């Protein structure tokens, strides 16, 4: 009898530990959201619409917001077509040598230190051009975006039942027609999810922009070959400043960034079962 009790006790302790550690694991997110809101909201409320549209010296982050959207848009333009085609290739040739390497390469690039991508782009684009630019920042982000979207495309394609493939091929269609006209449209939803999650990810990236985008906070971006700002980059620079006023701006900017991220991420996540990050 006492032996049984010892076992029951052990189980109780174990369950309590598991519950407590789980709570501890997700606690930081709530603390982060609460802190960012509590510290960012008064800043935005005080400065009003100017915070979103004004330049840095006016106490706003307008150019950084515009820069983030510009960079995200350009990186999508550069990265998405390549990512989609690579994902299709990895799906269609899973057992060929190149197909297997492609899959492994995508997995490695998914995990790659993003600062190294930034330094690479600096060397091949910023140094020859002689200036930081929006296009360099976008290229760095595109390199980070590509494996995400490719992996999602690959996964989405794999979920299509094999019978559709058989049916399409038995109609005598070519491989290109089967994949681009029949199967790819069926995977639209999954691919789109990957695209949006990839965009949410690169919109929040900082390290690859450090030596590529340059930063521009006193005027709105007007050329893709000129330096451009971004919200994460601005926050990084403001946190390192000793001035308390800069920290306040950083909190406000973080709230804006958090809202952009949650605004893209949560709706997708709610409409979907699993996410691979």
């Amino acid at each position: 009898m006492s032996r049984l009790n010892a076992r029951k006790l052990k189980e109780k302790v174990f369950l309590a530990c598991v519950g407590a550690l789980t709570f501890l694991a997700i606690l930081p997110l709530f603390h982060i959201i609460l802190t960012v809101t509590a510290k960012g909201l008064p800043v935005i409320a005080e400065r009003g619409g100017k915070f979103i549209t004004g330049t840095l010296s006016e106490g706003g982050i307008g150019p950084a917001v515009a820069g983030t959207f510009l960079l995200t848009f350009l990186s999508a333009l550069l990265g998405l077509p390549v990512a989609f085609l690579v994902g299709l290739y990895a799906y269609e040739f899973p057992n060929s040598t190149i197909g297997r390497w492609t899959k492994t390469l995508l997995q490695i690039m998914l995990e790659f230190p993003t600062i190294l991508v930034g330094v690479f782009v600096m060397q091949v684009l910023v140094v020859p051009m002689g200036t930081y630019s929006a296009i360099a920042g976008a290229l760095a982000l595109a390199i980070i975006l590509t494996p995400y979207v490719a992996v999602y495309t690959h996964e989405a394609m794999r979920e299509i039942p094999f019978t559709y493939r058989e049916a399409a091929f038995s109609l005598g269609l070519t491989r290109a027609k089967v994949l681009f006209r029949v199967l790819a449209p069926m995977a639209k939803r999954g691919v789109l999810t990957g695209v949006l999650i990839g965009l949410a990810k690169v919109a929040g990236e900082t390290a690859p922009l450090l030596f590529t985008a340059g930063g521009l906070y006193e005027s709105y971006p007007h050329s893709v070959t000129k330096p451009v700002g971004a919200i994460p980059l601005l926050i990084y620079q403001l946190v390192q400043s000793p001035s308390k006023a800069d920290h306040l701006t950083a909190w406000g900017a973080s709230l804006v960034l958090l809202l952009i991220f949650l605004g893209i991420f949560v709706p997708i996540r709610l409409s979907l079962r699993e996410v691979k990050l």
Partner: protein
Amino acid sequence: MGDAFKAMTFPAVLAVFILFAGMLFVYFTHAVPAFHRFGIDVYLKNVWIAAENPEDEIYGVAAAIWGSIYTSLIAIALALPLSISYSIFVVDYAPKWLKNPLIIISDIMAGLPTIIYGLWGALVLVPFLREHVMKPLHEHLSFIPLFSYPPTTGYSYFSAGVLLAIMITPFASAIIRGAYSMVPFTYREAVYALGATRFEATRLLLGYIRPAIVSGTILAFGRAIGETVAVSLVIGNTFNMTWELFAPGYTVSSLIANQFGNAFIYEYMTPALYAAGLALFAIGLAVNLLGLRILGRWEENVKA
């Protein structure tokens, strides 16, 4: 034969491969001057003497490599119990209505912009850790070498490790949870049929997914070692090669983030930073390949 599909997709695949090879090539060629000048010492020594005169420049990035590995190890040590518990809780014990919210929370944490972790870490977490963890430990247990460094600013290996642990827990738990939920249901039935308590059952089932836990840990380590901005904001950015948890330090990525901007003034600093980047490249590659390999093998075994 004219396969239009191949003709359209293969160039994209080729472009990605060339890009990757190009990255390796760029890092290697730009690091070469540092190897010529300092030899293997660039990795083994902990010195950082920047001078106008190239003759006087000496660089060794050992402290940064040490910092990258040490902070990632601290992060893993803290994240592992959290992510295993989380996985067990979500799969086995969480009531149905709580499961999905918990998974969504974890996904949000994994995707949250790292700069937000950095800002929160630098302005909220570090002051908290210094007052409530580091100072008490230093005051009462400073005879243990780990705690002997006085936590004056709080920016330290320890702070970086804790912040990284928070950031990689959702990532590690996604892999472990995936594996844990893949354990065939008959195994659970069998264990409970033997009269095991839930603790005993979980312990047994965890043994079954041990390879997945190992690879999840390795992949999370790979992610931690590459993190840049959040770490550079809380680690203190000082060349300090030590076990002492509360000492400020450096990591390879924070070194590059901090020094690259003005490295071109000096002749050998840029090559030294490229050499450091190359080391990070190599460690990251090896770690990720190993992790993916273990995970792949385990999944094959389970499905077979």
